[in-house]
Each structure stands twice: as structure tokens, then as C-alpha cells.
């Protein structure tokens, strides 16, 4: 009985991580190929970041860090960026998001406005780190840099977070009902 339980638990874990893997691959390709069509003033939302934060909030901070490391490296490869830049930024975001993790808070964190706020905060620090590496401060002074790369991109990413948040919210409602 225990063995059966363990086997089925492992199978469901494998299935879960396979689904995550697929989502990461598809989201990464979507981010590289299609997200530019949704740009507003040259700003695009970071879908993989939303995914990393989602993972941190549902699986915990430690697993979130490893997940973010893998996702960041993957994204650096497919976006022809310097390998390590997205990695560094995403593990920082995963660390910050992981502070909000709680076993009994998963539904509340993911299915309510809390998710949007957590994404905004984590995204803000993610973008500051990422663009700090890329931008030369001779091209732009700090305040425009702060507002464009810190606030604006985070805001747009948070707005897009509404979609998974509402999906989770609907699912929670179905489960409760």
C-alpha cells in the first residue's frame, strides 16, 4: 500500500514536472518570438518571470531557486543573451517570491491580488538587476532608468499576471464549490 502510494506520488511528481518543463519550453519560445507584438512603448511583459514566481510560491523557495536557475539559463540561450544575466535576475526574483511561500498560503498567494503584488515586487528587483548589467549609464541617467526598467516593465508584467491569477481564482472557486 505504502509502495503503491509512493509510486503513484512519484508518478504524479514526474507528470507535474513534465508539465512544468513543457510550459517553460513553450513560454520561452513565445517570449522570444511573439511577445514583441504585445509591446507597449518598447516594453514587453516577462512571462518566464511570472512562471518562476508561480513555481516559487507553489513549490517553495529552494525548489524555486533551482527552477529559476534552469529557466534563466534556458532563456539566455534561446534569446542569444549573455548566459548568466537572466539566470542571476530570475534567481533573485525567485528568492524574493519564496519569502511569501507558505504551505497553507498557496491558493491565497496565487489566486488573489497578492500574486500581482508579489510579481510586481519580484519583477522590480529582477529588472533592476537585469538592466543594470546591460545598460551603460552614459546612455541614460538613473531616474529614467529606474522608471522605465524598474517601474514600467514591472507594472506591465503585473498586469499580465492577472491572467494566471484569475485562472487560479476560478479553479479555487470550482474546488470550493
Amino acid at each position: 500500500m505504502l509502495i503503491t502510494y509512493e509510486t503513484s506520488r512519484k508518478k504524479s511528481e514526474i507528470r507535474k514536472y513534465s508539465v512544468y518543463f513543457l510550459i517553460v519550453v513553450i513560454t520561452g519560445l513565445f517570449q522570444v518570438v511573439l511577445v514583441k507584438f504585445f509591446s507597449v512603448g518598447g516594453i514587453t511583459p516577462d512571462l518566464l518571470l511570472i512562471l518562476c514566481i508561480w513555481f516559487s510560491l507553489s513549490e517553495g523557495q529552494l525548489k524555486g531557486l533551482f527552477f529559476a536557475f534552469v529557466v534563466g539559463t534556458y532563456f539566455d540561450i534561446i534569446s542569444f543573451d549573455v548566459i548568466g544575466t537572466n539566470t542571476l535576475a530570475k534567481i533573485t526574483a525567485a528568492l524574493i517570491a519564496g519569502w511569501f511561500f507558505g504551505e497553507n498560503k498557496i491558493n491565497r498567494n496565487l489566486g488573489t491580488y497578492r500574486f500581482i503584488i508579489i510579481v510586481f515586487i519580484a519583477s522590480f528587483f529582477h529588472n533592476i538587476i537585469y538592466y543594470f548589467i546591460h545598460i551603460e549609464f552614459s546612455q541614460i541617467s538613473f531616474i529614467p532608468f529606474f522608471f522605465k526598467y524598474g517601474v514600467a516593465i514591472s507594472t506591465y508584467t503585473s498586469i499580465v499576471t492577472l491572467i494566471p491569477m484569475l485562472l487560479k481564482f476560478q479553479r479555487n472557486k470550482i474546488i470550493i464549490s
Partner: protein
Amino acid sequence: MQRFLKFVKAYKEYFTFVVLVIASLYLISIGDVTRLGGFRTVVIGSIGWLQEMFAWLPDTGALQTENKALRDLNLQLSNEVIKMRTAIIENQKLREMVNLQSEMGFDAITAEVVGKTIIETRNYYTISKGYKDGIYEGMAVRSDAGLVGVISGSTKNYSLVELINNKNVKIAALLQRSRYDGILVWEGGEYFQLKNIPKSWDVRKGDTIVTSNYSNKYPKNIPLGIVVSKRELPGDIYARINVRPFANFLTLEQVFVLKYIPDPERLKLINQIDYKLQLRKRASSY
């Protein structure tokens, strides 16, 4: 040791974070990973194929950016075209001036026209050279086309040119073809008038007028203008001849100052006779 392990276990997330940050920084520091080169090529190819699949979708952001860049480039190129055209014209003018300088027979100092002035109804140019460049009062000034005027004063860096289109200016002129002498004057308007030419003298439309040897103020054989019309008025023994000057006073930008000073002895003789005649005139009027 156990306490250390306990400590690490308690803060495992932070230790993991630090290790992963170090790994990320290491990846950044090694830059372009050549070992991934082949794999990256496959990735580039796949992404490129995917992007091509969606290339038909209009990307307004990219179009806006491209349009702005093209507008900026267009402006920059049109400015460069204007500069190049100006440079071509200037180049042509300078070439003509260089050729002319070698033909003139006088040493000449080139100068730019920096100002145009009217003093007591007389027209003057200010040029950008003065006595430190060897320019003195009395020197004739011409353009590549023809006579412009005479230096009426100079300071260290600037000189004033009295133009020939002034009512007090009289120039001893010569019809180049028929070798007849006359006096070229300006009575206002577009044309000069060639005076003291009898009706019977051979003067035709298109004849070139040059400065005459009789002029003490200007060197000889400097082009003045071209005959545009000859009218014979009844009761007048002289023909009325209109001459268009070669020099275009409206568009002149560069001039030559001829290092020619009128012969002082000749000037002195003329002034002496002029003075005597004036005294005689005054005496006869009393």
C-alpha cells in the same frame, strides 16, 4: 560540525542562492560559451524558423522605430547633400579663381566679402583682409568676372571697397574690339553707361569693355562689362550705350585685391593740374 550542518540546513535557501549567484556570475564572466556553439546554432536556426512563420504579423512597434530611424537618416543625408552641393560650387569657384590668378599678371590677395554697407548713398563692401595682409588704400579690387571697385580704407584685419556702382565713380574704359576709349559711369539702375562715344564710332551689342590704359586708378585690361544696347538720340552727337557689368554685386562672396597702386608721380601731376584748373575757374568767376 553538526552545528555547522544544522546552520546550513536552517539557511539552506540562502546558501543555495549564494551558490547559484556565483554560478551565474561565473557564466557571465566566461562570456560566449563556445562549447555551446553548435547547440546555439541549432537554437538560432529553430528560433529563426519560428520567427519566419510569424513574420506576416505586423509589428507596429518595430515599424515605428524603423520609421523614426529612417526619418533621422533622411534628415542627416539631406543635410550632407546640401553641404556637398555647396562644396562642389565652392570648389568650382575656387578652381576658377586659382586659374584666374595665374593669368592676371598682378599679384592678388583673395578675400571674402563679409559685409555690405551704404555710406552717404555710396555702396561699399567690407572684406576680410586688411593692412596686415598687405592691402592698402588705392588698390583695385576685382572678382573672377570683372572689376568690382577700389580699396578706400583699410584697418588691420578689414578693408572697405568702394564699388564701381557709385555715382561719383568714373572709369576710363576701352572697347576691346574697336579700341575706342570712353568713360564708364553709373547713373543708377541695372546698367552702366559708356560716355563720350560718338554715334559714328563702331560699337556693337556684345562688345566687351575693359579698363583702359588711361586710367590711373585701375590697372588696364580688367574686364568691366558687355554692351547690351546702343541708342542714337536725335540732336545728340554721342550714342547712349548701356553696359551690363560682369561682376554680380548681389552675389559676390570672394574677391581679388590687386597689388597695384597707381603711380604716385602720375597722380601728383594730375592733382597739380586739377588744382590749377580749379584756381583758374574760381578766379574767372570773380
